[in-house]
């Protein structure tokens, strides 16, 4: 695991929670992403809702934030950024990088143990 430094490049959407406020009141970016067919934007409660007498009576009473999931499927179309009325989202496209075959696990050699106990090393 030490040399396991490769990560699949994917767009990242920088989310400004202060500018957004309570996300459940708007959800225009969620709708915009679903209209593109990718459906990668969701929303969740920022903190655990209180239990008991102070429990929220409506979904809108809970403070929500926007989450992004499965961004490996994001083409970076930017529809969500255009849809946001508060300019809370910024699209960050990934840096171009080396192929995994050049970066990844070059130290591993796949050996074969034969029936007589000897070991064949395909490349040395």
């Amino acid at each position: 695991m030490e040399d396991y430094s490769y990560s699949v490049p994917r767009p990242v959407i920088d989310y400004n929670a202060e500018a957004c406020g309570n996300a459940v009141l708007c959800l225009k970016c969620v709708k915009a992403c679903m209209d593109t067919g990718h459906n990668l934007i969701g929303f969740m409660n920022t903190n655990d809702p209180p239990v008991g007498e102070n429990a929220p009576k409506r979904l809108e009473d809970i403070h929500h934030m926007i989450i992004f999931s499965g961004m490996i499927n994001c083409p970076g179309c930017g529809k969500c950024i255009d849809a946001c009325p508060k300019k809370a989202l910024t699209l960050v496209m990934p840096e171009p990088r080396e192929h995994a075959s050049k970066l990844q696990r070059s130290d591993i050699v796949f050996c074969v143990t034969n029936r007589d106990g000897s070991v064949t090393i395909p490349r040395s």
Partner: protein
Amino acid sequence: MCKYCAEYGNGTKWYLNPQNYRDELYRAEGHENTVRMLGGAQKNTFEVGAMGQVDIMIPDTNYSDILSMALENMTAHGGQIVPLEDALKIIDLCQEPFVLMHCACRRYFGRSDVLRCLFFWPVANTAIKERPWEKDTRLLTREEAREFERECDRTGFLHSIWHAGVNSDGIPAIVMCHCTSTDCIPTKFRVSYGIMNSQRKGEYVCSVDPNECKRGCKDVPLCMKRCNFGAMRYNPVDRVLYIDPQACFGCGLCRAACPKGAIRLMDRSEFPALVDNW
């Protein structure tokens, strides 16, 4: 039989063992916390939050086996696909009333809100108390719950049974969800990222009788669009459909669409190669 049935099945499947539905288990130390969390107010923090963390958790999708190994010991929550027959048996094992709640996976990603999560009673009580903002919750009797299961099978929703954590005294089953792989968070984890512990395959595998299948719907295989896991292969020359047992999750939804009844469920243990394929 995966490790859950071996350890908590008491000779049968873990979700058909009545010991896993007893009141003491839901209240036992170690279980009480997770049962309350997954049924109560913190449910969405756990479940939707996991979906929000997926990009950080999985930096390299080429090597999902490494992640799967890391999550093999995540025993706080998990589930398994069940076919209609077993779903009806589970309904018979549980206490009345059942509580039908909205599907968090759909609502929190902007899809239309549907009532698809069937909580069992001691857990459902927590859910009603701790989540008063969900006003569309419905109480179901046992007979209504059975009818709901049949309706899900007709319309093409998977049945899956969920537990609230593994401990030495048992594995409490808390909820039965009805979802599809496009929306369901754990099914997405399983299908897209290969995380076995998020949703295990069912105890069955579907099998097609090719002779019956040839006389059936022919060019437009009706069962194929109901498969959520891409386990069906259509051969346009012979006009017959094959099932890949390695990919089949054993949900049995395809059976309901077949006009000839050519698909049947076989026990997963009948395939020697599927002994550890969960």
